[in-house]
């Protein structure tokens, strides 16, 4: 016989890009990550809209930088959830190879021994979001902790995240990805493709024109035999994202989200990036 279900709370950070209404339905606690501009810390999604940010991004010199939320913010959130009856917290975050969020969460978790599991999603944006959504659904269904943790790993192995950047310039200037930092510039203008895998940003070939890139994204999607969930990711390119969705002619059984990616990721990839995350069917 099963033990009565443990009360499990789910925490993530705003780089998960989970649509707000879905996060609220699934009782996912989202901690805002930080954008730093001119010595001012701006919590994600405060003060300006994502579209406003991307429209201005090319004019920012130097580029806004980003930071993990503070240890104390995590501690307060954990404390509050435990006070409200949570017996265990799963804190699922952006790839630790790309960001310090996991480290900060793990530091905060030390104040609550045995109560918090910090999980490195090895992904970004909805690549992280889908893992969190899965965990939240499983928690609501009353699954035990180990089962949920195994489920997260199983979902992770089926996730694919690919994006076309409009230019490599932002990734180069951000300095977070070593091959991009070392890049001295092509003589030809190209639109680089990247894939996030095992917590790393990998190069996935280039194309020379935007339309070719969109076709390549579509080809990649259509080459996947079957998928359960899809997010079309963009940084201020919603028209093209919508076009992609309608061209795919998916039936209603595949939930599809169109996500204007958080500026905390966007400042590293630049405006007019376009891509997708899918959870492939098992």
């Amino acid at each position: 016989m099963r033990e009565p279900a443990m009360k499990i709370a789910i925490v993530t950070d705003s780089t998960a890009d989970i649509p707000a209404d879905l996060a609220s339905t699934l009782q996912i606690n989202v901690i805002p990550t930080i954008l730093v501009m001119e010595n001012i810390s701006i919590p994600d999604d405060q003060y300006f809209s994502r579209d406003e940010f991307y429209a201005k991004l090319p004019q920012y010199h130097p580029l806004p930088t980003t930071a993990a939320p503070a240890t104390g913010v995590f501690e307060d959130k954990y404390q509050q959830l435990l006070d409200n009856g949570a017996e265990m917290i799963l804190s699922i975050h952006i790839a630790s190879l790309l960001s310090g969020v996991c480290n900060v969460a793990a530091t905060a978790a030390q104040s609550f021994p045995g109560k918090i599991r910090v999980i490195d999603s090895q992904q970004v944006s909805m690549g992280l979001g889908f893992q969190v959504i899965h965990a939240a659904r499983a928690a609501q269904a009353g699954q035990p902790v180990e089962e949920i943790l195994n489920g997260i790993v199983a979902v992770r192995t089926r996730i694919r995240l690919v994006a076309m950047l409009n230019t490599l310039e932002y990734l180069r200037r951000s300095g977070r990805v070593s091959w991009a930092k070392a890049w001295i510039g092509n003589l030809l203008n190209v639109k680089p493709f990247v894939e996030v895998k095992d917590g790393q940003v990998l190069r996935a070939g280039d194309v020379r024109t935007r339309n070719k890139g969109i076709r390549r994204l579509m080809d990649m999607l259509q080459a996947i035999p079957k998928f359960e969930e899809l997010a079309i990711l963009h940084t201020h390119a919603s028209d093209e994202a919508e076009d992609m969705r309608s061209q795919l002619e998916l039936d209603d059984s595949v939930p599809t989200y169109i996500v204007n990616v958080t500026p905390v990721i966007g400042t590293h990839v630049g405006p007019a990036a376009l891509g997708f995350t899918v959870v492939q069917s098992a």
Partner: protein
Amino acid sequence: MSVDIKTSMPGTPPRVIKDINGQELKELTKAGLQWLKTNQQTVNALNVFPVPDGDTGTNMVLTMQSAWDEISELSEKTAGKMSHAIAHGALMGARGNSGVILSQIWRGFSRALDGAATINHKNIGQVFAEARDTAYKGVVRPVEGTILTVIKDIARAAISSQGTTNNLYEILESIIAAADLSVKNTPDLLPVLKEAGVVDAGGKGLFYILEGMLRYWQGLPLDVAITAIQPLSAMNLENTLEAIEPGQDFEVVLDFHPDNNLNFEDFYASLEGMGTSIQIGEGDGMYRVHIHVPDDKLYEPIIYARSLGTVTKVAIENLVAQMSEIENQRTTRLQLTNVEPGQIAVVAVAPGPGIARVFASLGVAGLVEGGQTMNPSTQELLNAFENLPTDKIIILPNNKNIILAARSAAELTVKKVEVIPTRTVPQGLAAMLRLMPDGEFDDVVAEMTRAIDEVETGEITVATRNVEIDGVQVNEGQIIVLHNGKLVASEEDLTEACLRLLEIARAEDYELITLFYGNNLSMHNVSPIVDTLREKYPEQEFEVQEGGQPHYYFIIGIE
């Protein structure tokens, strides 16, 4: 609190400070923040670990700022409660790895001061020891040669000096000396720092915070960045600029002998009014000043130095011009990619130096000169890849007459060689964009081969004899147009030939037209032609590159 002498100038008798209460700790925190802020860019510039994103200084300032915001209105008298407020503020505003560790340092610091009225020589060792322990706990995998090592050395200095003096001023001095030494030692512990020729940014930030506190006790200014005068030999005046910012039009380097002793503070402040990137070196009674100034202040540093003494040498460089030259070198340098064993290497045949550079910039590991009228031999192709440290090779012949030689070369080696049958330069470039050096060889070959069909090729050259091909009659000396290798038109005029090509290729259905002009043309001839094409095809993007190929006026990619 007992501060005997506070607002004295440097060099005055030693100060005696026996304890620090809540309000004094508040002032020290503010001083630490101010001095860190003043040196923020210096710390940013050091940032190479763990991610070289140049924001360590900014993140530490934000963390300290958050600590200060928490206490700025507090009238709390005890050091214990004040330090708890500082720690809370830091904890809630910690940014970045160094900020997180800094907030942990404050947390440990405050924990050791639980219930304490003051910081004094009896508890200061424990305070820094607890700060150290909490800092280490805040990191999943502690790395030495970072701010962690620096706080460790600080704690050691605090513990050892508390036994020899009860004067906190002296203890802080020895803590700072230890921090300084520790920071300088970080490159020996962390190879990535040594490679980059820097010390650890987070450790240096911590040093500035503590130094700011000491400067406050010394009554020294906290808002003027003082890059201490360095020995002349230590000055590094190599241009490390990545980009010129407004107001950095010229670099002035001047040597002078001052008539009287230099008031360094005034001197530095005056220079700051003129420009940026100030460095000052000292040696043998003379000073060397390095400064970046805007156009309209070009001579000010020289006039100023002359007012102070004798100027012996002046060097002025136009940074804007220098930058564009660097930019130029960067784009003309031919740098082949180093492949690792097991990776996929590409060898491309290029008909001209400009095209070779483009292939190099896209990551080829080997280049062979060759084209329409100068086919490389099988041996030349073989030589290009035999010495590469990998056995997975792809050849891009980029000309239909070279495909055969490439295939022969592939048969003559024990290496695994695939020839992707690119018949033109644009096809070769399209294939090259899909190279993934670490991918599965067969997959990469398939993907690169598919890419060939994504581009249409045009070539504009001169007929070498009278001939009729495919119904097109051409006379020797006429300009001829080839579309995907097929003769499609002849023209008397170069612009007309280009227009014909775009018309035949239905360029209006494509997005991007890339023109590589040959060694028989210059940008001067090419510009008006491209202007005409742009006018005719306003929806299409045009990119013009120097191809440097012989005989062919243009090789054109349409995609």
